């Protein structure tokens, strides 16, 4: 009897709390949409999973003596950009225009100090959005590291990604994704970061590879991947994580999310299949590295387009993207520059193709206007990202090189990054008792 009375009081109290909540919502502050919030939290986690995935993907492709140094490039980005994003990155990317629209700034976002109870119109706490976007900011500079692999100083790399994030990523992110960014206002479609992340990272990688110069012995000496098994597992993480990357970019849990997820799956599969067929026809053998390259080519191609193209468009974008990447890498081999892990050849090329090619496959109603208008806006966005990132990267590289040094000494490069930079070894189990 007593128990049920207490339960009744609690029930009344709970109802009152709900009423208070409703009243509050009626005030104009949006209510939390638990479905969207749950999916966005999941997406945030999935995108973070891509960073260790990238570490494994890149780590397996280098030589044994550089495996830890290479994986540390991705992991270091989680720490460095993880902090930088909280301090000022989110503010620069998503605050209102300052400095003539070069970047944004909102004092409330500085140190994330003013968004403790903010709920966005999409029904998610602003913390979720800030953290979701923060994962994108982490993965962009981590991608570039593939072009520097096996020959860059750790300190130089760390300072480089700080400056690159501040001067390249945050402004670009602001231009394309913030509601008052100039490319956003022109109606540029970049669903999940083809322009902001993959074109800019690809361009930076190309400039970085040319600036640093080739590794010792490249391309004459064979440099075998130390562990393709790890590369394949990493590619698997990337494919899975990409569902968060693309489908999460809808910032909802509904139709758009389903459309983006479907397009992502189709493009990844068609990219891999296309690469397999190409290698089978040209070399009579299909390689596992080729397969995962095709997966990535397909995923990058669909990234700018995921929410705005029909399934058959995703199929074509992925398949053709893989062909472009295949020949971009062939071309690199002919030209002889050492973009070690083909960051430009895969991410740069596929993202440019995806950003411009998406115009041909838009679902009815998507896009802002005429075909030609959209084609121009897409091309303009790609060129801006390519040129801005390339030029700024060169300036940052020159400055970092002058004050901190970038390229490993010849002796350190010969000894390997694991030994010379970290005093560690990746594969202790190969030795008896060390």
């Amino acid at each position, binding site marked *: 009897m007593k128990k049920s009375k207490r339960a009744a009081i609690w029930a009344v109290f709970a109802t009152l709390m709900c009423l208070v909540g409703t009243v509050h919502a009626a005030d104009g502050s949006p209510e939390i949409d638990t479905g969207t919030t749950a999916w966005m939290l999941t997406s945030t986690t999935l995108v973070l999973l891509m960073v260790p995935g990238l570490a494994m993907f890149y780590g397996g492709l280098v030589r044994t*003596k550089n495996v830890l140094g290479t994986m540390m490039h991705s992991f270091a980005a989680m720490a460095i950009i993880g902090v930088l994003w909280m301090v000022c990155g989110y503010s620069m990317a998503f605050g209102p225009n300052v400095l003539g629209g070069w970047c944004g700034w909102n004092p409330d976002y500085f140190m994330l100090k003013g968004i403790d109870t903010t709920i966005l119109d999409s029904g998610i706490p602003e913390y979720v959005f800030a953290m979701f976007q923060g994962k994108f900011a982490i993965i962009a500079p981590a991608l570039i590291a593939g072009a520097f692999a096996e020959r860059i100083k750790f300190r130089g790399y760390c300072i480089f990604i700080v400056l690159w994030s501040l001067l390249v990523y945050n402004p670009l992110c602001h231009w394309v994704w913030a509601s008052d960014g100039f490319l956003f206002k022109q109606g540029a479609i970049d669903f999940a970061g083809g322009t902001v992340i993959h074109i800019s990272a690809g361009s930076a990688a190309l400039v970085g590879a040319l600036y640093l110069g080739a590794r010792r012995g490249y391309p004459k000496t064979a440099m075998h991947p130390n562990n393709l098994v790890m590369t394949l597992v990493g590619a698997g993480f990337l494919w899975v994580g990409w569902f968060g990357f693309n489908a999460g970019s809808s910032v909802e849990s509904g139709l758009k999310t389903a459309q983006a997820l479907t397009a992502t799956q189709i493009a990844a599969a068609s990219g891999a299949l296309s690469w397999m067929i190409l290698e089978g026809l040209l070399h009579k053998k299909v390689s596992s590295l080729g397969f995962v390259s095709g997966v990535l080519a397909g995923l990058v191609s669909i990234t700018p387009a995921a929410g705005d193209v029909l399934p058959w468009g995703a199929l074509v974008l992925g398949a053709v993207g893989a062909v472009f990447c295949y020949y971009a890498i062939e071309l690199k081999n002919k030209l002889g520059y050492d973009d070690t892990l083909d960051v430009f050849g895969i991410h740069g090329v596929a993202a440019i193709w995806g950003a411009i090619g998406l115009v041909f496959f838009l679902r009815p109603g998507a896009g802002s206007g005429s075909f030609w208008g959209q084609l121009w806006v897409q091309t303009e966005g790609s060129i801006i990202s390519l040129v801005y990132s390339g030029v700024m990267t060169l300036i940052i590289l020159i400055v970092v090189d002058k004050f901190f040094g970038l390229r490993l000494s010849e002796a350190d490069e*010969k000894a390997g990054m694991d030994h010379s930079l*970290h*005093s*560690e070894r990746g594969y202790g189990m190969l030795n008896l008792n*060390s």
Partner: protein
Amino acid sequence: MKLITAIIQEDKLDDVREALIAAEIGRITVTRVDGHGQQQTTEIYRGLVVVPNLIPKVEVKIAVNDAFVDTAVDTILAAARHGADGKPGDGKIFIAPLEECIRISTGERGGEGI
């Protein structure tokens, strides 16, 4: 014919290998090994400086005709040292007589087989 076995530091493998190739000694076999020596190397494990009890090294085996022994030894000495004067732990070179050498693909024996 002699069998030269050089135990060197891992980070000097590329130096030694490239120097041997430059001295026209291109046929070598390389193994990862562990051992005790004079060297007291330290590693960092989760921020703790530790001294491993067996130290990883690389073993380079080269079968050579007698005329090449001095070239091979001088090349390894020059390439495997840390710094101009060398350091404890740079390794050792063993030379042993080699009774026979047979190339599997052709069946050639002795000096021809090397």
